[in-house]
């Protein structure tokens, strides 16, 4: 494990623990925690506070059947959900989003490729593959953007981001991340801005390519 220097801010971790973070960001935070002990410990601290809040709740009367029901179901077979292990550079939660399969890259031009993992009104999250020296595409911010490095590294005006580092950018940050020389840079990137029109393609093709 390399030394991670760019971590998840506390407000994002708290929102993730409380379940209020939109799905695309929750995936990036879950992936970062998978790689980062510091943020895992912080996440556990937030869970501890959540537990204290839960403990502080006044008991509400429950129907008498509920306990009988639960106790009668203890021997019922459990539906096991699939657990996806880390594969190569992809942490478990990313493998889950990929449903256990390798990424299916789509070309964006300039050797840059992407695999959209999800996109809806809450935002989008995708894997990006950027050859050395190329710019990370579409860094025009409408809102919050989280970028987690999974392989290689990139640099921009704010510094250098290596494997495990998380860059948090909002509309105030105007930056141009460029993949460093070395291995191609693979990142997991989430944004709450609508997926943007890319100058390479005419607007009519945008729904087709979901840039």
């Amino acid at each position: 494990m390399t030394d991670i220097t760019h971590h998840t801010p506390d407000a994002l971790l708290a929102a993730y623990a409380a379940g209020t973070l939109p799905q695309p960001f929750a995936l990036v935070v879950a992936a970062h925690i998978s790689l980062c002990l510091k943020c895992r410990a912080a996440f556990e601290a937030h869970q501890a506070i959540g537990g204290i809040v839960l403990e502080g709740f006044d008991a509400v009367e429950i129907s008498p059947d509920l306990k009988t029901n639960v106790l009668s179901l203890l021997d019922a077979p459990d539906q096991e959900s699939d657990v996806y292990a880390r594969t190569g550079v992809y942490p478990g939660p990313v493998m889950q989003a990929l449903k256990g399969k390798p990424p299916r890259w789509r070309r964006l031009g300039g050797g840059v490729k992407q695999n959209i993992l999800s996109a809806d009104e809450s935002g989008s999250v995708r894997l990006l593959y950027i050859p050395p020296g190329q710019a990370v595409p579409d860094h025009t911010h409408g809102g919050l953007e989280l970028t987690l490095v999974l392989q290689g590294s990139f640099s921009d005006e704010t510094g250098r981001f290596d494997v495990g580092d998380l860059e948090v950018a909002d509309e105030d940050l105007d930056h141009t991340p460029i993949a460093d020389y070395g291995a191609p840079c693979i990142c997991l990137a989430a944004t709450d801005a609508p997926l943007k029109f890319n100058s390479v393609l005419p607007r009519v093709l945008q729904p087709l390519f979901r840039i």
Partner: protein
Amino acid sequence: MTLISAQLSPLTAQMLAVRDARDRAAFAALFDHFAPRLKGFIMRSGTGSGQAEEIVQDVMLTVWRKADQFDPQKAQVAAWVYQIAKNRQIDVLRKENRPLPEELKSDAQDSGRTDTDAGQILAVEQEALQLKEAISKLKPDQREMIEKAYLGELTHQEIKAQTGLPLGTIKSRIRLGLERLRHDLKDVR
């Protein structure tokens, strides 16, 4: 374990009995403690009584079925149950599968828990008590903000904007948590 179980909080002792001995009486006691609180917790976010009870049922069944994932060296029972409840709320109410971090394999899980560190468990309980006390000493409006944040009533932007949130209290706990993880990893490697 028997030597120190007298010092453990009743909830931790019950949860360990469920995990290690599949003790139904201990589970029933946990149910009596958590189910009514969980119902209040879930209804607070606007869920009706019927659906809240369905979620409580799922959460308590998960406590029973996934008991082997409970690690008192890392988390208190309430913190673990909180996370299960949050996961279930998101699955049911938002119809999403919540992305979860990879499980950290600790030495306890790898070695069949022959060397559960009693001191570590007690340290976790101690920390939680201190944290609880620190929160109870906050001003009422700060306490309310903490409650809102962890109930899930604030967005991350709103949490960030809450400059009054006593993050120092949280941070002190984070340091201890990190020590614990280091301890775990040292034994794995």
